[in-house]
């Protein structure tokens, strides 16, 4: 369906791959995928080891040392390599701890969204008829909706909190999973497929396990990775609008928000968390692209 252009347009869309080029691409792709996944792994490590890595307590204030530029020795005698914010908190420590929020919310949202989407997709595929139409129309409607407004509205109703945030972000992404699973199920149920099974003479289970499942899994892995990048950015955007994780817990988006009125005097408050966020988003979504190259080039054309 045309109305489901994938969120990230691959650099070489509409390019049919042929022969040797595909091989080289795949090999280079695997290397890049490894690099990307390592980055995510590193991020997880940093987030988990935050208490050990962060030089200071991220919520410890020092009113007299507020808005200090990056320095080796601040007014409280400590180093603030990325400066302090408007309440005197160490920006570096907050950036490190901010990784926790981004990753936890991101992964949770991907998980929940994936679950909802997969169930919906399976349901739609297996029931065809009415239920299928309903689910797909809901998906259409959701695409038509300026989602950020829905997010703001829901958070305005339920109040900003971790579970609300996860649910809202999950809701924003279930459609991709649903479509994939639905089409896989449709393939499964198609006449050609059933005929092939009989022709091949294998059991349904074996075919499913051997061929369909890996296909579905690789699609889901690609989508999940892309969705992770999107979820992290959405969480940051909502925090930037003041609707995300609440103070004093540090979150990258929230820090950009807090630093906004000091852009001309204490630019470091917004800039560093923003850059880290940007790099994370780029690497993770690129990893998703490379995964797609390696695992399932057919995903591109959809």
């Amino acid at each position, binding site marked *: 369906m045309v*109305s489901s252009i994938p969120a990230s*347009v691959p650099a070489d*869309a509409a390019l049919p791959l042929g022969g040797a080029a595909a091989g080289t691409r795949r090999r280079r792709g695997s290397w890049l995928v490894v690099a990307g996944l390592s980055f995510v792994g590193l991020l997880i490590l940093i987030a988990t080891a935050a208490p050990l890595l962060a030089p200071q307590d991220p919520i410890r204030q020092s009113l007299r040392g507020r808005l200090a530029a990056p320095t080796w020795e601040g007014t409280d005698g400590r180093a603030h390599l990325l400066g302090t914010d408007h309440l005197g908190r160490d920006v570096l420590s907050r950036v490190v701890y901010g990784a926790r929020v981004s990753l936890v919310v991101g992964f949770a949202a991907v998980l929940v969204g994936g679950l909802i989407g997969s169930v919906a997709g399976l349901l739609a595929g297996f029931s065809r008829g009415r239920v299928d139409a309903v689910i797909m129309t809901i998906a259409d409607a959701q695409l*038509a909706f300026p989602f950020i407004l829905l997010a703001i509205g829901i958070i305005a109703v339920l109040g900003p909190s971790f579970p609300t945030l996860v649910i809202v972000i999950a809701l924003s992404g279930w459609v991709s999973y649903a479509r994939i699973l639905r089409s896989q199920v449709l393939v499964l149920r198609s006449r050609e497929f059933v005929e092939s099974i009989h022709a091949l003479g294998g059991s349904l289970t074996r075919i499913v396990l051997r061929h369909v499942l890996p296909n579905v899994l690789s699609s889901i892995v690609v989508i999940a990775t892309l969705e992770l990048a999107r979820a992290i950015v959405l969480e940051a955007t909502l925090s930037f609008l003041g609707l995300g994780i609440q103070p004093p817990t540090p979150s990258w988006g929230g820090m950009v928000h807090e630093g906004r009125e000091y852009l001309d005097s204490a630019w470091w408050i*917004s800039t560093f968390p923003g850059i880290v966020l940007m790099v994370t988003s780029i690497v993770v979504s690129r990893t998703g692209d490379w995964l797609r190259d390696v695992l399932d080039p057919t995903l591109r054309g959809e």
Partner: protein
Amino acid sequence: MRGFLPFLGHRLFRAFIALWLVSTVVFVVMRLSGDPVPLLLPPDAPRSEIFRVRTELGLDRPLPVQYGVFLANLARGDFGRSIHYREPAFNVVRGYLAATIELGLTAFVLAALVAVPIGLFSAMRRNTLVDHAAMGVALVGQSAPTFFLGILFILLLSLKADLFPTSGRGDWRHLVLPALTLGAFTMASIARLTRSAVLEVLGADYIRTARAKGVSELWVVAKHTLKNAAIPIVTITGLQFGTLLGGAVVTETVFAWPGIGRLAIQSIYNRDYPVVQCTVFLAALMFIVINFCVDLIYGFLDPRIRSG
């Protein structure tokens, strides 16, 4: 052509349902978000005042009744009266619509005008520094969070370099940074698309033929690229224009741009249901209409899709 009219009807029906769903969701969410009346009156207003204003606004009736009224009015194109502005909601939205359209159009025109030549140039200078640099920037533009791009632009191009104003709407200078921010994703996508379309063309037979014939390579490349890339580019641009409002909400907030995105956020906080309903409805309508047109064009071009 035989299957076309049912196809059309089918799509129309789905569009209609989608619009209805969207409106209902807004209705429910807004009603759940609470009572707008305390926002209109001073904190020490007596209960009788509150009651009076609620009745005046029709908020005292049972929810299903309100919903019925809402739908009936919607069918007539009546979005109700803004609770905050005391004017018809549509008039309020219309006042801010021009700003958003101005921003959106500029963003997309800019995106296309800048991205296509860059993509072309990149492909022709494949694997050089320029190519890598351009595609690197495109990568950033596609993956970077919109709000932070905006903040970066403000920091670097407005505060440090003093080239543009930091926010608000005014002369053309006020338009540049917000348009760049809003159009970044589209610009990057188009640049990459163009590049790959050109690369494909460059490797094709007719290029060799053209070279052999001595025809200017650029001209042939441009002609064929446009043919190839036109469809995906137009599709992407069209669809992104349809989701304009979603992107505009964030950009308008960062740059204090007086458009309907910002209006919508304010109205959600003010619990001004009619304005929110009107804005969302119009945004969804715009998206659906554009999608519909794109689907129509595709339907024309590729009969296979119609059965989907």
